[in-house]
């Protein structure tokens, strides 16, 4: 049995930032476990720029952003194991790890930070009818093939889903010499950033078909084409709008799911909405001493927010290791009301917050000129005017602990319409 103060599961942006922050807060005995052959996680395949505007005040590519953290991680001489999988975590924080180099290892940790990230939803998750030919990839898999491994998935491409990965992959495929016929989006709006719609689709005259979906896949050995149709307000395909697109490749960018199998086995309570753990103000899960941050907690749109959240988590884990347990004070529940799809963290213990707490939230639709209303019970503590809110753009709100203490047992966030 190996003993560590903190074991971090995952060496991507969340794991790196959490481990670095824990070390800076005095924890010597840290282990980071990464299943890939290198640190950096998904950033290594996100070769486009736009990362780091909040954290570094400059625009970096994904690999550049990762390398800054990897360099600092090595300077701090934090221990890590590559090509190593965590197989199991128990509630008493013993872990089973496996790698071809070390075989099976048993590890006991005082605290664990879950930073496993997320994975892509697949064709199976969205049930597209049709045959099962080769040529259907999740967009992120195709991204790794093209940008890292040097394989080209195909020549004539249709993309389903207009989240940022789908948009970025449209441009990547064009630059690599493929033709992208269309990006198909079920919703009436794109889930991606405007900048990506302009620079990845409009620049190359790629049509974005909103309110459309794929209703059939055709092909025997290899994909031959897909049938696209417009949907009505209840998301049912309209028969008369069916159109066949010839293609040899279909990329799916239809959402991300936090990868929480280890968390479930450890008995950690999950939030059905985020797919991640239920956490308190310290990013601690329902199992004391097990923390979660980054995309395994909730899917972020900007890595900068992952870094910010993970630093906070690393600091909390360090406190957990070194400080005597203290009284948490009153527990306030955060509640997503009208127009809000979720809030993280789920609980705030009043005595664990120094002066203010940042809450992260997403809205359930596109809103223009509204007010974000933050209340404790019926008392309004904050009214924030918002010109534009979209499900694809996470919002963060800073709330003073004074306001929370003086209020009730619930902190609610809602959208007040017509708030000019």
């Amino acid at each position: 049995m190996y003993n560590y103060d903190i074991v971090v599961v995952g060496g991507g942006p969340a794991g790196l930032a959490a481990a670095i922050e824990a070390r800076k807060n005095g924890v010597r005995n840290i282990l980071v476990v990464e299943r890939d052959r290198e640190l950096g996680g998904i950033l290594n395949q996100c070769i486009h720029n736009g990362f780091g505007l909040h954290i570094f005040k400059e625009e970096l590519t994904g690999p550049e952003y990762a390398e800054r953290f990897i360099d600092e991680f090595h300077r701090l001489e934090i221990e890590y194991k590559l090509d190593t999988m965590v197989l199991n975590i128990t509630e008493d924080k013993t872990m089973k790890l496996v790698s071809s180099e070390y075989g099976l290892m048993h590890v006991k940790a005082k605290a664990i930070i879950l930073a496993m990230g997320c994975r892509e939803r697949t064709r199976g998750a969205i049930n597209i009818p049709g045959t099962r030919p080769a040529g259907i990839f999740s967009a992120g898999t195709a991204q790794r093939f093209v940008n890292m491994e040097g394989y080209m998935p195909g020549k004539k491409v249709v993309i389903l889903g207009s989240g940022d990965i789908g948009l970025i992959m449209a441009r990547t495929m064009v630059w690599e010499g493929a033709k992208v016929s269309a990006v198909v989006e079920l919703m009436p709006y794109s889930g991606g950033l405007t900048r990506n719609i302009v620079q990845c689709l409009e620049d190359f005259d790629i049509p974005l078909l909103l309110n459309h979906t794929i209703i059939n896949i055709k092909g025997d050995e290899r994909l031959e084409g897909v049938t696209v149709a417009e949907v009505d307000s209840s998301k049912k395909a309209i028969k008369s709008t069916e159109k066949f697109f010839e293609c040899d490749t279909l990329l799916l960018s239809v959402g991300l799911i936090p990868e929480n199998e280890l968390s479930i086995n450890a008995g950690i309570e999950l939030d059905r909405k985020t797919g991640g753990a239920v956490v308190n103000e310290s990013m601690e899960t329902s199992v004391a001493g097990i923390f979660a941050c980054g995309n395994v907690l909730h899917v972020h749109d900007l890595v900068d927010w992952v870094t910010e959240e993970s630093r906070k988590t690393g600091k909390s884990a360090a406190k957990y290791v070194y400080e005597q347990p203290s009284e948490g004070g009153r527990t306030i529940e955060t509640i997503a009301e009208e127009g809000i799809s979720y809030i993280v963290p789920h609980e705030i213990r009043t005595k664990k917050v120094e002066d203010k707490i940042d809450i992260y939230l997403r809205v359930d639709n596109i809103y223009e000129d509204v007010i974000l209303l933050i209340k404790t019970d019926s008392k309004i503590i904050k009214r924030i005017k918002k010109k534009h809110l979209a499900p694809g753009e996470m919002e963060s709100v800073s709330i003073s602990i004074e306001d929370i203490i003086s209020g009730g047992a619930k902190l609610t966030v809602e959208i007040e319409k017509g708030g000019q």
Partner: protein
Amino acid sequence: MRQTITCIACPLGCRVEVEEKSQGEKKYLISGHKCIRGEKYAIEEITNPTRVLTYTVKIRNANLSRLPIKTDGVIAKGLLFSCIEEIDKIELQAPIRIGDVIIENVLNTGVDIVASRSMNAIKI
């Protein structure tokens, strides 16, 4: 001439209409934007649209077969594909350090193509 441009200065994504005037003090008539940044972006996008190119180049003797690279500044949008052609001619050998210049002054733009990550040579 009239063109519609989606502004990317902020997440609002205003549809900005730009009309070129043949005479008069202001050369362009701009509408649909909600702030001054929209006006600036629209004029730039009409007169001289620029982009950063992020792409990959072949690499040998490394664990991966592609190295990510970028233009170390913006280049004219119209030059993107010619720039890609130049990069496709190259094959690198690991090791490479982040920031290493891969092509100097690509297509006489005054902009370099640089490595956007480090890549070690495979240990044999």
